[in-house]
């Protein structure tokens, strides 16, 4: 998908702000309004806001071509198809099984598996076939190098973790944990293939380089998030500790205790049968 931008007479910085950064911020805002509102009007408004933001971000390589950040919008447009297919497929497979509520017909299971397979083949085709997201001919979207290794390494790690967790915590969950080991193995196999087999546009060497950067990214993401959560906890702890103790009342007097005992004795017992 090559980009042919159309030009509008506007300063490049304002163009990026209006046509990329504001839509990027509008997406979570719309989602937040949709999730937190109780009336249907606000919910619809939130949905529309999120959709408009999403569409504008996807169109940003055309509307704000001077901004390098718009490559992220291009990536979003490129991966949304396979990701949505996989996630809807997983939903169909999950809810056509043994669930107490919201059970779907059994036939949805086959459709779900088909959707997962299609999404998966589509993603793999982005690395080893002609489907690679390209900003111009033979110019691979730089954020694809961030996205793909991160997804593969984290899926391999998380599914391996889930498999062991199911075996350790669950009771008779061997079959389920085997499915997760298979997912982990599949992701690992794709990683090994990426490290050894060149794609039409992505060499194994380049993939290797970006895999280690993805690991560094994940480590940084983990450390940074944990640090901010720690600071958040410290702020709350210090604030709560400095609050004055709540007012206490005097212990009940003998008369008050007697009154309570009288009331309780009236209500204890019940009629004899």
């Amino acid at each position, binding site marked *: 998908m090559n980009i042919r931008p159309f030009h509008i007479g506007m300063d490049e910085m304002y163009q990026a702000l209006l046509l990329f950064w504001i839509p990027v911020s509008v997406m979570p805002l719309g989602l937040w309004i949709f999730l937190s509102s109780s009336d249907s009007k606000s919910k619809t408004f939130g949905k529309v806001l999120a959709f408009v933001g999403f569409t504008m971000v996807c169109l940003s390589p055309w509307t704000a071509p001077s901004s390098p950040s718009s490559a992220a919008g291009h990536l979003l447009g490129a991966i949304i198809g396979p990701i949505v297919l996989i996630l809807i497929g997983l939903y169909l497979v999950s809810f056509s099984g043994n669930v107490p509520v919201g059970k779907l017909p059994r036939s949805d299971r086959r459709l779900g598996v088909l959707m997962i397979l299609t999404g998966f083949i589509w993603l793999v085709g982005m690395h080893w076939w002609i489907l690679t997201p390209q900003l111009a001919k033979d110019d691979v979207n730089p954020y694809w190098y961030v*996205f*793909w290794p991160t997804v593969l390494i*984290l*899926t391999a790690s998380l599914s391996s973790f889930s498999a062991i967790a199911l075996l350790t915590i669950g009771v008779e969950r061997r079959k389920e944990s085997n499915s997760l080991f298979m997912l982990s193995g599949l992701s690992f196999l794709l990683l090994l293939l990426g490290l050894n087999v060149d794609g039409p546009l992505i060499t194994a060497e380049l993939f290797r380089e970006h895999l280690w950067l993805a690991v560094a*990214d994940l480590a940084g993401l*983990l450390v940074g998030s944990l640090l*901010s959560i720690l600071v958040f906890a410290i702020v709350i702890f210090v*604030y709560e500790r400095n609050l004055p103790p709540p007012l206490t009342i005097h212990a009940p007097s003998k008369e008050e205790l007697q009154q309570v005992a009288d009331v309780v004795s009236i209500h204890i017992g019940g009629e004899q049968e």
Partner: protein
Amino acid sequence: MVLAFILPLLLILAIDISFSAGIQGFDTEIAFTRFANATLTAYTLCSLVLLGNLFFYGESRNRPLAPLVGMFCATILGIAATIFFIDQGPMLLEDNGSVRAQAIYNIVHMLVSAGAVLVAIGISLGVTFSAITSQKQRSNFTYEEE
């Protein structure tokens, strides 16, 4: 379980080290720059989200100002640290020419990474859930035969 989490990474490292002299394609300097940028950006963005969270936490407590100010300062500290360290020169400056360009690149990069993390979590959770629900229904109680 922690070992299970890092097992795929350790396996790749082991294979790489076994088949070649060392870890191929790994540049310590570039990896450190990426790690430092990711840490600073994740800290700042996460603090911003938690600041918003704190605003709503305060609603049930007559919105006290002290924790809001505290978290606001922590966020500002993150922004100031990011600008300061990027401004030091090539240490945190990747292929970008200015502090602003690097900061914006960091944010977009973090959004893409966070998106990839969400996708990986979604796939792993989805497969776990579908593996559990695809098994035969189990009874929660064992009935004793009289």
